[in-house]
Structures are given as C-alpha cells and as structure tokens.
C-alpha cells in the first residue's frame, strides 16, 4: 500500500514516469470493467483512456484515508454509464437493419461468450457489480464503496444477477434441464 501511495504522490507531483507506471498498473482492471460493461473493444478502450486520464487529473481529490481502487473503479463505472447513456440516445436502427440487429445470435457453445451475452441483458448496476466482484476480485465492501450503495445491496445484486444469468443460460440451452446426474465442478472463483 505504501508502494501505491508513493506512486500516487509521484503522479501528484506531475512526474511523467509515475504517471506511466500508474497507467500501466491500472489499465487492465479498468479496461476489464469497461469492456464487460460496454461489450465493445474500441468503446472500452476509449472509456479506459478517459477514466485513467480523469483519475490522474483529479488525483488530489482522492481521500487518502480510503482505499484507492474503489475510487478509481467508481470513476471507470461512471464513465461507462455515461457511454452507455450516449449509446442509448443514438438513433435506433432503420427498418431494414432491424431483422439482423434484433435477432439473437445462435448459441456458440462457448460458455464465456454466452455469459457475456447474458450479462448484457441485465441492468447496468447489476452488471457493474458482477464484473467488479467476479472479474476484478473486489470484495463486497469495496464494491459498496465504489458504487456508493450498502454492502447488503451489493450481495442482493450479486444473487439476483446470478439467478438472472442462470435463467438466461438455461433459456439458451447452456444449462441442461434438471437431471439426476450431477455435473462435476471443474473450478470455482
């Protein structure tokens, strides 16, 4: 943690090498959140740049008595929300493109892709919460800090997202119909 504080102090002092280290250190978790929230590489890359730049610019506003990571991820989550709002305000597809745009893709058989597809159907805050927990490995307390909601709400959101995802995967035929044969658990979080 003191290592992180030193790095942040260097960034605050305007040291270029410090800023480079900062970006190198945090770009992947920030991009991971943006990519999973937006579902688009280029958009996620743009938002990642914005979020990191914003964090560097306003580093002096970070309350040093609180953990840094939730603060940074809160900035990224806010940028994602703004990007999603902008995307929703764009003109809807024309009648000619509706058929191809709305038609659900065929099941790919790839669990990861299916999960991402299912994830895009849940509400933004649920998705953000799920990504922060399962991809970024943040604790419920940290997510609570980042999303500015009580810890109990975070847990409720996680349970709800899991149920919705399972339902969606079941609809897509990824989860088999209930049988008496129990599948093995290959891995956990």
């Amino acid at each position, binding site marked *: 943690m003191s290592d992180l504080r030193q790095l942040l102090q260097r960034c605050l002092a305007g040291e270029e090498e410090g800023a480079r280290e900062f*970006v190198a250190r945090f770009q*992947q978790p920030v991009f991971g959140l943006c990519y999973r929230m937006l579902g688009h590489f280029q958009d996620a890359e743009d938002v990642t740049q914005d979020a990191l730049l914003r964090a560097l610019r306003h580093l002096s506003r970070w309350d040093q008595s609180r953990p840094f990571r939730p603060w940074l991820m809160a900035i990224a989550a806010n940028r994602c929300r703004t990007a999603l709002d902008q995307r929703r305000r764009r003109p809807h597809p024309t009648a000619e493109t509706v058929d191809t745009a709305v038609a659900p893709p065929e099941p790919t058989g790839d669990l990861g*892709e299916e999960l991402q597809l299912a994830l895009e159907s849940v509400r933004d805050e649920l998705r953000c919460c799920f990504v922060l927990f399962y991809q970024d490995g943040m604790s*419920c307390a940290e997510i609570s800090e980042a999303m500015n909601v009580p810890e109990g709400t975070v847990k409720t959101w996680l*349970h709800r997202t899991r149920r919705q995802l399972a339902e969606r995967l079941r609809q897509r035929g990824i989860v088999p119909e209930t049988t008496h044969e129990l599948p093995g658990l290959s891995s*956990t*979080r």
Partner: protein
Amino acid sequence: MNCQDFLQHVEDELLSHPEAAVASLRAHLADCDQTSCREFLENTLAIEEAVRVWRDQTPQVDVTGTVLTRWKTEAAVPDVREPVRPSESPSMHRATPDPTPPPASRAWPVVLAVALLMLTLLVPGRSGKNDRAGTGPVAAVEPSVPSPTPSPNVADAEPHTAVVRDRSIAYYNAAQHATRMVTDAVVLVLPDDDPSSQFEDPTHVPEWVGHWEEQIEPLKTQFDSAVRSLMNVLPEPMPAT
C-alpha cells in the same frame, strides 16, 4: 433447516467460499430429492464454470502511450474545467495555480471587514438622531472613525441608512442588556468556585450543587403559599344533585 433456508445460506456462502458452498449443496442433495435444490446446484455449477471461462477471455489492452500524451498535453494547457472553490465566485475563477494564502493568514482581513461593518452601522450619523449610540461602548471610538463617503444620491439614501442604523443600534443595546442580565443571574446562582479543583478530584461536589435544596427553599415556600391562596379564592365544588 428446511430447503429454502438452506439454499439461502448456500447463496450467501457462495460469495465468500464457493467451493464449500457447492460441497455442502452436494451433501444436502444426497438426502434431498427436491427439484429446486437440484436446479440450484446445476445453476451454480454452470455459473461458476462460465465465470471461469469468461474471466480468462478478457482481452489485453495498452493505452499507456495515448493516456500519457493526453495527460502531458493537458498539463501544458491550463485546465479551465478545474472546479470553482466554494469561496470563489465564478468570475474570480483562475486557471493558473491558486496563490490564495492558507485560511489562518486570511483571518485578519475578515476580522477587519467585520469591524468596519460594525462601525459603519453603529456610528451615529450627522443628523444627530442616534442618541442611544452614545450609551454603548461604540461611543469611545466614535470621534476617530471617519464618516462614510456620501453616495451621489444622498437625499434618497439617507433616510434608509438612518433607519437601518437605528434598528442596528437598538438591537445592539438590547443584546447588551440581555447579556448583562444573564451574566448577573449566573453570578448570583454560581458561587466563585475554582473550576480546576473539580477536574482534580472527580468526587468533588461544589457547594452550590450540594445545597441546592436549601437554596430553593424560599422559592418553594412562596410557591406553596401562592397555590394555597389560589385554592382559597376558588369556589367550593357543588355536590351532585
């Protein structure tokens, strides 16, 4: 524990110890043939497996160069989007680093401003209407304070200024009297004890606290006699017929 409670417990445990949660779920299903429990396990296993694959599929990115270039460009150009401090009006906002001294060194202009404002309000005007001002402590500084520069429209501004001044002085005098009354009352009630001794000895009870019942005895007697005389004046209740 019924199945619903058990699944609730497992759901909570999944967030902290997923492996243990799945193990306990499997153990539960050895004795349970409920479809809901079996479905819960299947969903759990599917989600856990999907999350593992999904997590590994996150692409890598490198935005270091772009972010640094933009950061350096912004550092070279003053950021006009810097938030305005609450103490500054928007028109005072500067993009350059703020040379404002810390609050402690800024205290004296504030004190001076307040003092000037008070003096302006309390100094009697040239019309001689403020006789009450001479009774207050302001009278001592009155001759040394220059009168404010008259505005171009003195004829219109003068009556309003005089009214405001009179009201301010009246308020000031009333507040002064009230303060004196409270001070006198406190001095009457509280004997001159050494306050430091109370902190040295936690069991110490001041004299005025220990004998408060004796001190209010006259008041109690007067109150009792007043109530008695009031009861004597009131007519006797008439018996019901």
